[in-house]
């Protein structure tokens, strides 16, 4: 298991979650947790996913970024450690 965090931020529109989830399913990425809020009209989602089976993290992060551009949102994929180290002792 290799946990990564995907964040999606941008203008709310139909099908954001569907498109991201479809991409993840097609690439063998299991979703462990999803939380989502709307802040000042902006869609804000965080997914905790397992990228242990992914061949190239770099490709995954790059393709998600591209997918985001297509929908008009910003998608970032980062390994979990950066958040763990900053917020947990």
């Amino acid at each position, binding site marked *: 298991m290799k946990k990564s965090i995907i964040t999606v931020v941008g203008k709310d529109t139909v099908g954001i979650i569907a498109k991201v989830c479809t991409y993840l399913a097609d690439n063998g990425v299991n979703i462990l947790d999803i939380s989502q809020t709307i802040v000042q009209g902006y869609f804000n989602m*965080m997914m905790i996913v397992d990228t242990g089976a992914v061949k190239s*993290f770099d490709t995954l992060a790059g393709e998600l970024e591209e997918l985001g551009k297509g929908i008009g949102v910003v998608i970032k994929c980062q*390994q979990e450690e950066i958040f763990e180290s900053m917020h947990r002792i």
Partner: protein
Amino acid sequence: MINIYEVNETNQMIQQDNLDVRTITLGISLMDCIDGDLHKVNDKIYEKITRVAKDLVSTGQEIEREYGIPIVNKRISVTPIAIIGEAACKCPEDYVTIARTLDRAAKTVGVNFIGGYSALVAKGMTKGEENLIRSIPQALAETERVCSSVNVGSTKSGINMDAVCLMGEMVKLAAEFTKEQDSLGCAKLVIFCNAPDDNPFMAGAFHGVTEADAIINVGVSGPGVVKHALSKVRGENFEVLCETIKKTAFKVTRVGQLVAQEASRRMGIPFGILDLSLAPTPAVGDSVAEILEEIGLERTGAPGTTAALALLNDQVKKGGVMASSYVGGLSGAFIPVSEDQGMIDAVQEGALTLEKLEAMTCVCSVGLDMIAIPGDTKPSTIAGIIADEMAIGMVNQKTTAVRVIPVIGKGVGEMVEFGGLLGYAPIMPVNKFSCEAFVNRGGRIPAPIHSFKN
């Protein structure tokens, strides 16, 4: 498990407050490159640097990508070249060949600076060390990425005033040798008192003789993050202010610790230290001066500036120390002028003077940094500026440094542009009265009484 608010906080720091890891600096010992034959020394140095550092840039980029944190610079520091070249270099020009080799190696491995064209002469100079010092102006003019530093004093051994005098001349010469580029050579030359062996920041980085064969040192940064955090506690008392700085420094440092450990693991090179310095850039919102203003000063340089800076420096250390397994290097707030937009503004508005900057260096790292002065400043006056700063370091048992740029052909009020992270600066006035008779006495200033602790 990590929640959405924590994730957003981290990403806001990175995207809006310019949180980054300022540098991964790979320290490489060149002790095994020493040889009596100059060609062999050069060949061995090139071979060792390009072998040990071959994966440095790619590893940095990998970490950047995976954690989504920018790592602005990947750099190399080496053993002071005065020591490495002493057996082979008979004159200053011989040392310049090593500077060219360092530059070539830096370009091959893709790092933007290589530090360690240095001499440690706090008490006295060998012939080789003097040759290296005399070669600095030419070495900096002929190379692009080589950085030079000279340690001329320490709390333990006093101040080598002969070296201080010589450095006054060398700073002036380095300026003249690079006058076509606004005396850029001086931006790559630092004069130290109590220079640390493990500093990852340029231009003063070198790999100390007490260090292992290779080591990873990391410098974090985050003035923008601290400023943002402080903007939420405006008007609160000092307790709240200090707690906020500490908590923020802790978070910033943890990111640096993660990056340092990962770089160390992936390259198979031991982790040395994390440097907690708040290092500004010319970008708006990435300024130490703006933090001081957020604390409550109308402009940096106003009365209260030294106290505010002392507080900031101390809280950054207190917050950062617990976040890293090894802290070292310079670890404090940097107050360069040309690399900090808030400092530049303060100078231009007449709020900040050279003398106030000198006072500020008593309470923070590192010293008079990236300060442009008139091109007609005499070498003896530059030596006097260096001597003052060295005295502050020696007596206060801290690192101090001088990186001043006498910009040839320019005078007070004119602007000078260094480009990139080095920024731009207004030329500041220097006290006109002479210190020639003082700095030219010859010899050294003895170590202060409180250094005798044995």
